[in-house]
């Protein structure tokens, strides 16, 4: 063994433990799940069915509804949240703003609250006799209580409000840290050249934030595709399947119905495929090699 090989062996031995852990706890389950996605049956009575599960996916109305709902959350909620986070972070980055720390903490705080606790509180806020309805009625904005949780349309809105409330502050933090890395002299130069605030935002801030925009939209996309807690705790996927997400469908297939773990694994692989497609798309759209 020459010196190079020896150093190599030593360095490998350092990372060997981590590599083995990753293999055992990440890759092994992933491969197992892939194998399982070609099996079907109840509980432990699984048998190989080839591509049947994947064929079933395409004609499964519950899956398609879950996919549709998840896409609606994705298309409506992620852009709103990203823009909101960017907007708030620019406001909070203002040098002249007082109580900056307080506002930043207040907006970030939802991201560290317990998922279940906040979902339960949202359920009560938006309940038929909840605070929101009481307020809207008192202020004469509506005549009858809005069915926030029991109407298919409003239930989706409730979920979107809930996830926006929780995750905007989280994304804001990334933008804030990125904004602080932008050299102030660039803005000074722009001001001297007579650029308006909006022009500065459009031509300086947004382009320089591009890597962060890409990062937050990919993580938000992944988060939305895996959305589970809010829906499970606020609406249980209802009314009907109006708010059901893909992750919740996996839960139902594995635990609520007579379990079919094979088919549940197929649905989870469908999510994996979607995440890969969306991430590639976003990288392409961002059009930046450094992104």
């Amino acid at each position, binding site marked *: 063994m020459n010196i190079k*090989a020896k150093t*190599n*062996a030593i360095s*490998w031995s350092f990372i*060997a433990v981590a*590599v*083995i852990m990753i*293999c*055992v706890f990440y890759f092994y389950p992933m491969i197992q799940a892939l194998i399982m996605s070609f099996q*079907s049956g*109840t*509980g*432990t*009575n699984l048998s190989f069915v080839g591509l049947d599960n994947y064929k*079933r996916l395409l*004609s*499964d*109305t*519950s899956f398609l*509804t879950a996919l549709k709902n998840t896409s609606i959350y994705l298309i409506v909620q992620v852009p709103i949240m990203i823009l909101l986070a960017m907007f708030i972070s620019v406001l909070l980055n203002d040098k002249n703003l007082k109580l900056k720390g307080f506002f930043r903490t207040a907006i970030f705080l939802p991201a560290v609250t317990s998922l279940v606790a906040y979902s339960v509180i949202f*359920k009560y806020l938006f*309940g*038929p*006799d909840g605070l929101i309805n009481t307020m809207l009625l008192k202020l004469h904005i509506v005549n009858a209580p809005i*069915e926030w*949780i*029991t109407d*298919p349309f409003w239930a989706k809105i409730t979920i979107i409000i809930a996830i926006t409330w929780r995750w905007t502050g989280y994304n804001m933090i990334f933008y804030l840290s990125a904004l602080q890395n932008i050299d102030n002299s660039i803005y000074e130069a722009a001001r001297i050249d007579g650029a308006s605030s909006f022009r500065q935002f459009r031509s300086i801030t947004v382009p320089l934030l591009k890597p962060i925009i890409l990062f937050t939209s990919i993580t938000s996309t992944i988060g939305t595709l895996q959305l589970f807690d809010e829906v499970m705790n606020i*609406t*249980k*996927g*209802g*009314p*009907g*399947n*109006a708010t059901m997400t893909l992750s919740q469908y996996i839960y*139902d297939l*594995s*635990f*609520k*119905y*007579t*379990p*079919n*773990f094979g088919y549940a694994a197929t649905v989870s692989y469908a999510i994996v495929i979607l995440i890969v497609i969306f991430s590639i798309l976003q990288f392409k759209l961002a059009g930046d090699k450094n992104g």
Partner: protein
Amino acid sequence: MRKMMAVVLAGMIALTAACGTNNNTTDSGNAGGDNGGKETEKITIWAWDPNFNIKVLNLAKDTYGAENPDLDIEIIENAQNDIVSKLNTGMSSGTTKGLPNIVLIEDYRAQGFLQAYPDMFYPLNDTFKAEDFADYKLGPTSLDGKNYGLPFDSGVTGLYVRTDYLEQAGYTVDDVQNITWDKYIEIGKAVKEKTGKDWLSLDPNDLGIMRIMIQSAGAWYTDEDGKTPNIQNNPAIKESFETYKKLMDANIVKVHADWSQFVANNNSGAVGSVPTGNWFTPSITAAADQAGKWAVAPIPKLTNNADSINASNLGGSSWYVLNVPGKEAAAEFLGKTLGSNVDLYQTLITEVGAIGTYKPAAEGEAYKAANEFFAGQNIVQDFARWTAEIPNVNYGMHTYAIDDILKVELQNYLNGKSIDDVLADAQKQADSQIK
């Protein structure tokens, strides 16, 4: 270098596998030792609902403990959903570590568990006499002629009504005895008109009331085999859908989104009646200020279905012994308490209000006592009588999967889709999903 890595990796995997095998052997070794020796044994029991099932277990534990101090019984309260997920993960992974000895399972789910994990349950044929229990409980709890579940909570339904609201609307309790759902809606409209109160509280995401209606006609989501979906040409399902729509159209329904809102709607006097399972009694009596204002009548029956009767079931449950070390002790505990002890059932009635489905217990004194909260009505005897009439149906393995399909179609139906299309589409989905 690559080769070396491969060797290291393979070695580690082999080691992990070996550890696994070793553990298993030690497990069974221990188990053998436990069964052989006559030391203090320990069993664990999982159940939900602290005011009902857990109280029952504690009373059974005290009764059994008085004569058999050697058995250490640990009762663990879990939400029902948690029990279902824990059982599924435990049983499908093939390790029985961490699973209880006795577990409560809802009747709707029982066949799913029994058929999905055939070796995981311990037959109880020698533990209790099946003929001593209500007939309709034996179908869901047994498989291939073996009884796996000790029937417990009857789930018999009744119509809880506010007598004061009825009187204001010009009716008496006699007017709600053995009525049809159409008559029920008619009375509800009168109550709403006279009192301004809604007639019942419903959750659009819970088809419980439809399951009550369907079973009252001796029908279910599936054929008698419990596997073939039977929706499209099922007159009981069709009429249940129509009845549900009539309820909603009559503008007598207050909507709730979860259990606590449901209980609140009833306890606050916002609604005049509750058609549900007898396990709801403790929630009704929790509003002590309403004592004397409630009565219980038989559940309404479907108006146009000749098979429908004024008795049905909603969400009963039974006890199961898992096929893990300690099963003999667990089975004996169940057999000597809830499987045969008439005196225990009298205590359960007086202290918990749990009726059970053990026929000989109905002869006891506690079953004959009047209930002051219900203005002296003997609700236990009434419920026990209706229990005997409940049509026996096979819930099969897919109740909740089909339930979810029907929920969606029910929304479509309420939004104007025709009933025939609704049922045809539900049938198609169920056919393709249930395999």
